[in-house]
């Protein structure tokens, strides 16, 4: 079975394609954009396409152009697999299959795609969080430096004071540090 993965996000497409290697028998290709010549020559049995690809409308229209396209694709709308298409759309994945392909063969492919999409989202979320953490550590360090200078505290005492402020107000350390720096800026006249 041949699977074409169309996804404007190349990293995610690679992740899906790699995941599909485990499902056999399979030949997997990935592409950032729909290419009529590629579809005609590769003749995929199933096209997995990201919902954020603008190519979906072109793929839909191929159903109406059966004469010019030897392998017309149809939307995956089989009712014998209830809930699958819904789940896939919510996960950001759509699929087009060649007429006649057994639904049972589609499920594992879509499941891999959905899993990989959510994995990618999680990885990106983790990365954003790590960046935010790093940023917050920098802010805390600056706030600590400010307290050491203005209050004559040592580093440990400055940190404890910040932590106490955070606990008393029930807010994250980074947020308290950001406020402290902003207030210090206002008092010094930065924001006037």
């Amino acid at each position, binding site marked *: 079975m041949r699977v074409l993965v169309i996804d404007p996000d190349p990293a995610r497409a690679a992740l899906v394609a790699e995941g599909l290697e485990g499902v056999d028998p399979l030949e997997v290709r990935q592409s950032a954009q729909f290419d009529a010549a590629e579809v005609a020559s590769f003749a995929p049995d199933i096209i997995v396409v990201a919902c954020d690809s*603008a190519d979906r409308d*072109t793929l839909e229209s191929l159903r109406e152009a059966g004469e010019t396209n030897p392998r017309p694709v149809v*939307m995956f709308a089989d009712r014998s697999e209830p809930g699958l298409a819904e789940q896939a*759309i*919510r996960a950001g994945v759509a699929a087009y299959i060649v007429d006649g392909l057994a639904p049972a063969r589609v499920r594992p492919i879509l499941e891999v795609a959905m899993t990989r999409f959510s994995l990618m989202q999680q990885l990106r979320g983790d990365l954003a969080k790590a960046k935010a953490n790093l940023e917050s550590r920098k802010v805390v360090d600056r706030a600590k430096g400010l307290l050491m200078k203005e209050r004559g505290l040592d580093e440990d005492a400055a940190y404890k004071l910040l932590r106490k402020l955070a606990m008393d107000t029930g807010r994250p350390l980074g947020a308290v540090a950001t406020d402290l720096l902003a207030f210090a800026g206002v008092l010094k006249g930065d924001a006037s």
Partner: protein
Amino acid sequence: MTSLTLGFIPLTDCAPLVVAEAKGFFAGEGLDVTLSREASWATIRDKVTVGALDAAHMLAPMALAATAGAGGPVTPMIAPLALAVNGAGVTLSNRLSQALPAGAETLQEIAAGLAAFIGQRRVGGEPPLTFAVVFPYSMHNYALRYWLAEAGVDLDRDVRLVVTPPPRMVEQLRTGQVDGVCVGAPWNAVATRGGLGRVVMRTSQFWPAGPDKVLGAGAAFAQDDRLSPLLRALVRAQAWCDRAENHEDLAVLLAQPEYVGAPPDAISAALGGELVFHRDGAGIPRLEHARWFLAQMRRWNQIGADVDAQALIASVYRPDLAMAALKATGLAPEVQPAPGPLFDGKTFAAG
């Protein structure tokens, strides 16, 4: 606050949704709305179907096609509000527009010129011209087909019609992959400002105050408590969009990358006359429009003769819901002109 998620496609006529959010009309109705920019009409339809979107900016024939099960499962939908009338147009590549006879100005003359050129190419054994539209179930597809067919072009034999995402149409006019496009604002303006072609037909000439986009939702949304406040907020936003003093503000707002992401001057081109959001009952989904769409779907074999057009239109097109919102906000039009004829003089009765 009541939460809602609405989908839109980056086009100038998504304006009522963007304005209702940015200018506080949603908040004024107690609605907390998330606008979700989508990349394709297919995804808009699918997300509305599975409930990932509560309602969305839709091509006017989409709700009818989904309810009829054209090319997919039967998915009952409603169109309780028209978002705008007019706005689409046909841009020909420079190469093709130069092939038109000098002095061809009216839609009939231009179509006749195109038909003659297409005929010459066929006789000369040259490949058919390629035209791009945005979606099979769109005013763009039907207007282009109707216009060329009236001039004697055989749409199946003489030309190649493809579906292409609008931003890519502009690029393909440049590279010569397409000879003409039928697309909505702001893309005709983006193409002509880039020196890539000439606009030879506007849907406002093809069918003055003709249909283009609606608000579409699943049929169950007709009973949802959130529908009335949503429609009230949108009709207020539509009235705001029509006011000339707001057009500069509107163009700058829509130009932002999270909305349309095109230059403000290209967006301005369709404001102030071409696109109408509210005036003369532009927000009311017209049964005449739906009838015309059904006739086109039949003509181009998208639906079978067994589809009960009357029942389909009555279940999908809901002018009563738009009118209720217009009355509730004091924005109901004093006169509500009946839809006029197409460029060829034909009319479509509501009955």
